[in-house]
């Protein structure tokens, strides 16, 4: 996938991704309408389908609210890249089918066009031509992501499959 990079800093917490006051709804479009509004009020209007959110350390820290990755996904974010993620956010994103990549080192700046290969974990900055490698996900997470999320994965498999994890 290829998209425009929206770049933010370290420790973007879930209250910034979607404030608690907006989380009590099953209307996911209303979550997207408030995504990141206390961090960057313009984001929700600027983001286009397939755009790439880029952050620093510990993206998604704080609450366990799955509304955070849902808000990003419904707003159009195609993939989130961070140096690393807060644990619950990381699982939640994969579980709802929002790709997340841990890329410890990159040169992406706001407005860069970025190409992401989810299969290989390669991230290419079109402006500089440089290629960066994401940390490899455990196979179970790749399987969940490829199924489109944990709901689809469990419908297919019935339970978790860890046995077939030769890459670990």
């Amino acid at each position, binding site marked *: 996938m290829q998209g425009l990079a929206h770049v933010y800093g370290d*420790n973007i*917490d879930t*209250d*910034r991704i979607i*404030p*608690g*006051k907006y*989380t*009590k*709804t*099953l209307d996911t479009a209303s979550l997207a309408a408030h995504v990141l509004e*206390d961090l960057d009020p313009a984001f929700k209007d600027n983001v286009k389908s397939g755009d790439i959110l880029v952050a620093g*350390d*510990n993206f998604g*820290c*704080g*609450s*366990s*609210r*799955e*509304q955070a990755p*849902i808000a990003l996904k419904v707003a159009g974010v195609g993939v989130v890249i961070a140096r*690393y993620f*807060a*644990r*619950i956010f990381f*699982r*939640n994103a994969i*579980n*709802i089918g929002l790709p997340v990549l841990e890329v410890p080192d990159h040169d992406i700046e706001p407005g860069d066009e970025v190409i992401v290969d989810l299969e290989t974990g390669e991230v290419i900055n079109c402006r500089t031509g440089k290629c960066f490698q994401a940390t490899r996900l*455990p196979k*179970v997470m790749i399987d969940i992501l490829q199924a489109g*999320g*944990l*709901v689809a994965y*469990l*419908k297919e498999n*019935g*339970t*978790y499959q*860890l046995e077939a*994890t030769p890459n*670990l």
Partner: protein
Amino acid sequence: MTISEKILSKKVGRSVRAGELIITEVDGVMATDTTGPYAIKAFEEMGGGQVWDAARCALIIDHAAPAPNERIANLHSMMREFAREQGIRLFEIGEGICHQLMIEHQYVRPGDIFMGADSHTPTYGAIGAMACGVGSTDLAAVMKTGKIWLKVPETIRIICHGPLKAGVTAKDLILYLVGKISISGATYQAVEFKGSAFEEMTLASRMTITNMVAEMGGKTGFVHPKGLELDYEFEATYPDENAAYVQTLEFDVSGLEPQLSIPESPDQVENISPHEGQPIQYAFIGTCCNGRLEDLQAAAQILAGKKVANGVRFLIAPASRSVLLDAITDGTLQTLVAAGATVLNPGCGPCVGTHQGVPGNDEIVISAANRNFRGRMGNPNSNIYLAAPTTVAASAVEGKITHPKKYQ
């Protein structure tokens, strides 16, 4: 083995070590009115049917309770209906905060593996359970299968030599430690707290400690069980002498002063001294971090015979109905209300910014909660300081941030 390695090994029936991916059975789950509706939706989408074990599931209406609007009222109705259909215990509005209830009602016990759809679930490590926060879909999958996949966490060991000075509390200690570890310092890891500073602590204080493992990014946390007293017999899990820790940090906390987390991240922690005199408009005691009887009693001791300062509103939300009843019975509540405090129903209160007391623009809040991220209490144009209930109470009396020793 560390405490989490021991608990997980026992459950899966073989010796597992940090770094391994495992599938484990789960002893209990819970979800709240923030996470429950999405968990129910995901459960239905997974094919629905009966949950794996209704007696091991709990639903709690605490985050926006009573419902402040029709949208949330309907989400509560959805939870009630699911609970009724499934035979799951639903804790109603006013019964209390999920974490307090899980321990009070023994939904979680020492040695259990517990998944809670709330980030402060590691609180249960106060009684020696391996408890992790998860999101709604993970929770739904446990309700469906009774299992979860996990990475056995590495463990950071934190040793604190005490005792704490008189008037310095578990909250001051955990704020100090969150400041040292940082908001991300324990990401993906377990934390074990050990040492004389913890051994004399009540269960309530131990819960304050493990509660804020979430603010270190931790997956789960434990206070060593030495000195732990529960109402029932239990088998304590200690780590082995030769357990492998990813890091051991040691602190002498015998001289620790009251601590403050300054806006706008819980790990921005400083001694109270440079902030004394900072005017406040709003004081709050409650939450899964500090809404227990000893917290209300500590506040009452400071407020006895005094009044909340003009221009300050002081809100109190007991962590559970049981806490509320005890505080009524022993006179704590009378003291607090006479001093000018407003008592809310047991539940999360204004902590999450959904209802019951949103701060105004440019207002300064001093709160005994665990988070002060921008916008946390519902208004991104206000600022939140986190402190011990003692500091919150003293500050409410003075209308400015105040060292509690003045009133102790």
